[in-house]
């Protein structure tokens, strides 16, 4: 019989306690939501501390707590350092967030920008990419929640997955983006403290010298800076991270909800706070051989080492940290995706004359619907977290160039931007299946960039920034 790091009753007690507390907090925060703008963008009035915390906490996903140690276990030091380079996404988005706020002071979503800047063809391609990515991420997070709770405590997959989804839908439904950002702030503190405690206890108990000696003797490749697969993985991971952040409404809706002049500093601070987290979670995996821990599946390595070093206290700590990481990403993605559907599909295509209250009502129904659809898709455990995410790399990396060029330069037009995103995605997917996951995002970004460059050379018309101001805003 498998011995779990945490008994099921304790896990259930923690998870139900957290769920009730967060939902109550969401209801309390939701009292201030009087309009759709309040609900979707927290009144566009989020201050620096909350802004930086939500940027950092949302980027700390189940990937940071599970996949960073997994990649370190598989690819060694480069896996750990390479994963931390995903912070570049937040750091480089900082100036872009400032520009977004400047160009679209009354905008709602990333889709708004693509539609106004590039027209309907590019917008349609962009929406397909966004939907594929959002569902891939939502389903992978829901599944990761269920799998992780089951691995740590033996709690049934369906129960764990259902509770975590119901909790996130619950507090976002009542509190909107305000609740998402406020809970992110608390979750960010829990994550930072939890990860730091595990790393400190690890160094104190196992010691750096003994870890290095064990790795040098039995697993030398993990310390090799010329590890070929790891060298290949490095830039692919960077482009994947950049694509995720640059295109996703999760980050655009935050940029639009922050107070004026806060976005730049908040994303910069969030990125710098996030940077060491994969190093710390990855380092945990390097200690595994010294502790005699060789997991059944590589993504179990982080929780397995933490539980081994810290015992039951460690298991509870890991449980809470990972639970917070999952919740902080799930709620953000649910809110941002329902905003995208409400604004880009319902308001722009189905009911252009919808009132503010109708938009808010639709947004809530949409959120609930997304939660139910995610739950249904999570039921069959269709794929692993890694498989789902790597596949999405080919999609999101194709949006990097059209977004960066579209924000700052006027020469690129819609047809080329649309073709760049579509061709980048298709060629990236071909590379994913023919070569491997470690080149999909890189190839997608390169192809999309090349088409954008051709588009700039051949296009004579200059875009007017005033066209971004819709309905006389």
């Amino acid at each position: 019989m498998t011995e779990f790091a945490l008994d099921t009753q304790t896990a259930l007690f923690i998870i139900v306690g957290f769920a009730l507390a967060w939902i109550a907090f969401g209801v309390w925060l939701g009292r201030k939501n009087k309009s759709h703008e309040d609900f979707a963008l927290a009144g566009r009035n989020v201050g620096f501390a909350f802004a930086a915390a939500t940027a950092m906490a949302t980027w700390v996903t189940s990937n940071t707590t599970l996949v960073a140690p997994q990649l370190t276990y598989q690819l060694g030091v480069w896996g750990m350092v390479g994963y931390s380079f995903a912070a570049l996404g937040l750091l480089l988005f900082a100036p872009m967030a400032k520009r977004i706020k400047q160009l679209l002071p009354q905008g709602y979503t990333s889709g708004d920008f693509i539609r106004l800047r590039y027209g309907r063809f590019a917008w349609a391609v962009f929406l397909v990419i966004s939907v594929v990515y959002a569902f891939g991420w939502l389903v992978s997070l829901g599944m990761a929640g269920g799998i992780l709770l089951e691995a740590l405590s033996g709690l049934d997959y369906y129960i764990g997955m259902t509770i975590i989804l119901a909790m996130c839908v619950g507090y976002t439904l009542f509190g909107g983006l305000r609740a998402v950002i406020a809970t992110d702030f608390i979750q960010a503190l829990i994550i930072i403290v939890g990860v730091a405690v595990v790393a400190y206890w690890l160094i104190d108990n196992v010691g750096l010298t003994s870890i290095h000696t064990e790795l040098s003797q039995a697993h030398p490749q993990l310390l090799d800076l010329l590890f070929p697969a790891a060298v290949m993985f490095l830039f692919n991971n960077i482009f994947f991270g950049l694509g995720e952040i640059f295109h996703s409404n999760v980050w655009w809706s935050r940029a639009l909800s922050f107070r004026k002049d806060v976005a730049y500093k908040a994303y910069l601070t969030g990125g710098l706070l996030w940077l060491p987290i994969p190093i710390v979670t990855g380092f945990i995996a390097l200690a595994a051989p010294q502790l005699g821990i060789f997991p059944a599946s590589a993504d179990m390595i982080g929780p397995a080492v933490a539980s081994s070093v810290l015992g039951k206290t460690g298991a509870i700590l890991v449980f809470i940290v990972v639970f917070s990481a999952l919740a902080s990403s799930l709620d953000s993605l649910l809110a941002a995706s329902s905003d995208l559907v409400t604004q880009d599909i319902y308001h722009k295509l189905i009911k252009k004359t919808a009132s503010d209250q109708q938009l808010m009502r639709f947004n809530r129904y949409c959120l609930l619907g997304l939660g139910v659809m995610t739950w249904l898709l999570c039921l069959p455990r269709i794929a692993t977290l890694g498989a789902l995410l790597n596949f999405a790399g080919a999609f999101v990396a194709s949006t990097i160039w059209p977004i960066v060029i579209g924000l700052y330069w006027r020469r690129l037009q819609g047809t080329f931007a649309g073709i760049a995103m579509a061709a980048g995605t298709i060629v990236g997917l071909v590379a994913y299946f023919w070569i491997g996951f470690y080149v999909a995002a890189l190839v997608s970004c390169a192809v999309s960039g090349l088409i954008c460059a051709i588009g700039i050379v051949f296009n004579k018309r200059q875009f007017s920034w005033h066209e971004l101001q819709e309905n006389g805003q």
Partner: protein
Amino acid sequence: MTSFQVWLKSYNKALFALLSILISCSAMAQSEDTVVLSGPTEEVRAGYFVVELQQVSPALRPLTLQVSHTKSFSSVLQTVPVMGDFNQVTLTGFESGHYYIRAVHQQRVVSQTAIEVTVEHYPIWQAVTLFALGALLFLLLLLTLIMGHKKAVRHD
């Protein structure tokens, strides 16, 4: 058919049944005593791989895997404990080369045969080419972003 022939036929049938029972009992006893290992059949390109264990009876826990460069296991490179009652182990950090893996329970070899795994890393030129392409693309993106940002600040 004489009565002797009938008796002989019945005797043969009984003997055959007895032998069949004995053989199946022996096979069952052997399967409870041994583990079947399986690993990657193709070359491993990134230094990590999964070894699967089949027919592991509870009596064989705790189980460990031994890794060696030689089929005779004259020198053991690594001894890897199998976690809990899982039926697979992810091994990592291997340099290019041939490795043999067998299962051991209380210093007794319990795997029917040792498996052979070949690790052959990607050529470094291939990795460096992709790295250089990525670095160039990233540099271009960075320059575009910096120039765009400076232009936007100037126009503020």
